[in-house]
């Protein structure tokens, strides 16, 4: 038993030396996280700010002019006055505005009569996110202006429902709060799957596997020595991510650190297992890295709910997301950062991760050979 421990320690220390001597692993574990966190924290922002919107006023009545002026004075919109509809169409094609609003020449006539006045809103549907925003904004301005006008004319406020949205867990609806936990998942995936996809293949490629196989090292010792150093690297990287998110980006963290450590451990077990599996099966660094990229990294970006909301995917794609462990970690991370320790969500995620880790590490053990053939 002592021999086993000593051999495992010797192997792990060797692996650690190799990590330290290879600047790329350090870059991936500590510099990449910071870069990604800043990109997702500051650069990639799904919130819209100061969009250029064209305004064409064809009705020159006092009422239309007042309505037009209601559009200015918003911090989100930069208004571009345009003379004719054709100019506006031209501007949208050229990409100088994201949409435009046309106040038709019969605006005041309709308004006086009390029937539907014509305000046309055209948006650039090639960016649906922005288009929806422009449309909703125009709608909002219109409703607000009507309320104000009624009050001025002494008419009773239109009876109905006033909707005041509140965004729970993220009151200011800041997209960063939603993106940063996901980007941490991405970093853990890179460390877990991409780095370890190289480590067994490297031993085969460089011939060092032959030397290892001639020693008394057992399969378990070999696997442990590959898992432990990269696990510690992953945890160190998670610490960097967490500190950067909470201090530099001002992210809330409402769960407990203990739960974070637990769920990170499970996800790392999954990612490390996957990386080692492709590495042991393919025995070629390039192929293994490609495989890890395709089966771990890309799903972590596309199918994890990190950027693209899973519930808005078509059902077949949604079903596929259940197969990729990243989705469970993304959900856990968003929960821990924004909502807190929610046992019902976290336990289900943890359970899935345990199953995935057991499967992947078990499969890796099967692929780990104690001989050259």
């Amino acid at each position, binding site marked *: 038993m002592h021999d086993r421990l000593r051999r495992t320690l*010797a192997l792990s220390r*060797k692996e650690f030396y*190799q990590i330290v001597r290879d600047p790329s692993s350090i870059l991936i574990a500590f510099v990449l996280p910071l870069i990604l966190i800043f990109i997702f924290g500051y650069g990639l922002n799904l919130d819209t700010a100061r969009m250029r919107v064209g305004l064409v006023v064809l009705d020159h009545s006092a009422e239309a002019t007042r309505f037009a002026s209601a559009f200015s004075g918003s911090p989100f919109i930069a208004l571009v006055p345009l003379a004719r509809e054709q100019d506006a169409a031209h501007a949208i094609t050229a990409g100088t505005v994201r949409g435009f609003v046309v106040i038709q020449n019969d605006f005041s006539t309709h308004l006086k009569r009390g029937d539907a006045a014509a305000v046309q809103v055209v948006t650039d549907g090639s960016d649906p996110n922005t288009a929806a925003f422009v449309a909703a904004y125009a709608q909002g301005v219109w409703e607000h202006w009507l309320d104000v006008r009624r009050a001025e004319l002494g008419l009773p406020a239109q009876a109905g429902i006033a909707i005041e949205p509140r965004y729970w867990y993220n009151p200011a609806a800041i997209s960063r709060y939603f993106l940063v936990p996901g980007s941490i998942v991405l970093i853990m995936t890179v460390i877990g799957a991409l780095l370890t996809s190289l480590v067994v293949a490297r031993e085969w490629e460089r011939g060092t596997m032959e030397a290892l*196989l*001639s020693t008394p090292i057992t399969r378990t010792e070999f696997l442990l020595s590959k898992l432990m150093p990269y696990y510690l690297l992953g945890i160190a990287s998670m610490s960097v991510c967490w500190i950067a998110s909470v201090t530099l980006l001002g992210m809330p963290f409402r769960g407990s650190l203990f739960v974070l450590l637990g769920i990170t451990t499970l996800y790392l077990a999954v990612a490390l297992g996957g990386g080692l599996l492709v590495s042991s099966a393919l025995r070629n660094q390039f192929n293994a890295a490609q495989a890890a990229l395709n089966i771990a990294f890309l799903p972590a970006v596309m199918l994890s709910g990190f950027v693209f909301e899973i519930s808005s995917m078509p059902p077949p794609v949604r079903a596929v997301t259940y197969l990729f462990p990243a989705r469970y970690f993304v959900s856990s991370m968003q929960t821990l950062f924004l909502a807190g320790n929610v046992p019902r969500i976290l336990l289900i995620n943890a359970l899935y991760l345990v199953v995935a880790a057991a499967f992947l590490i078990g499969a890796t053990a099967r692929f780990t050979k104690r*001989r050259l053939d």
Partner: protein
Amino acid sequence: MPEVTSESSDESVIEAKGLTKRFGDFVATDQVSFSVRRGEVFGLLGPNGAGKSTTFKMLCGLLAPSAGRAAVMGIDLKASASRARQQLGYMAQKFSLYGNLTVAQNLDFFSGVYGLKGRPRTAKIAEMVEAFDLRRYLPVTSETLPLGFKQRLALACAIMHQPPVLFLDEPTSGVDPVTRREFWTHINGVVEKGVTVMVTTHFMDEAEYCDRLALVYRGQVIAAGTPDDLKEQAASEQTPEPSMEDAFIELVRRHDREVAHA
């Protein structure tokens, strides 16, 4: 190096019995049997692709035999591989240490993997550094070592746990004859401590260093004995005193003729 505890001097340390390896239809090693005694330097001599490397790898547990039995120190390599591996040192044909680690880190790693600890471990590493003159290379990345020193380091790593049996797979391929001779003085030093050495080679001068040889050709042992035995077997009227190379060529040709006649 301390003496390896010896029980009886003529016991067989390495044993091959009907050893066979098939890769699909191709038979790389065909019913090979021999035994190596304690303290011997036993050579597998043969042309490239003759199957000597396959035979060799089955004997040190790197390949599983398709049939037959391979044992080291009486331990079956199939039944208790890990225990058998503790008894042997192995030096691969290709440099198989960690190229991006330093000489010191490689020594440290292999001593740990073989279960050395504490003061004996430090002492052993110091002894190896001394014996192979590695001191000034300790902080050097091992892939940048001169070839001769790479081989010394590989040998040092292979014998650190004082194995009674040492396996060397074409240990001096790619080095000049002077370095080869110098490397063999190190091997002979190991042999003097009672270590049994098994070596594969296709160099005639290297074959001369062996106590006994098995000539491997087309997967079979076609001749065996001391270097002088083999020369004697190959002697003919035209060449009454053949060199090792002459003997090698003659024995291979004779085998080809026998196969053609059969």
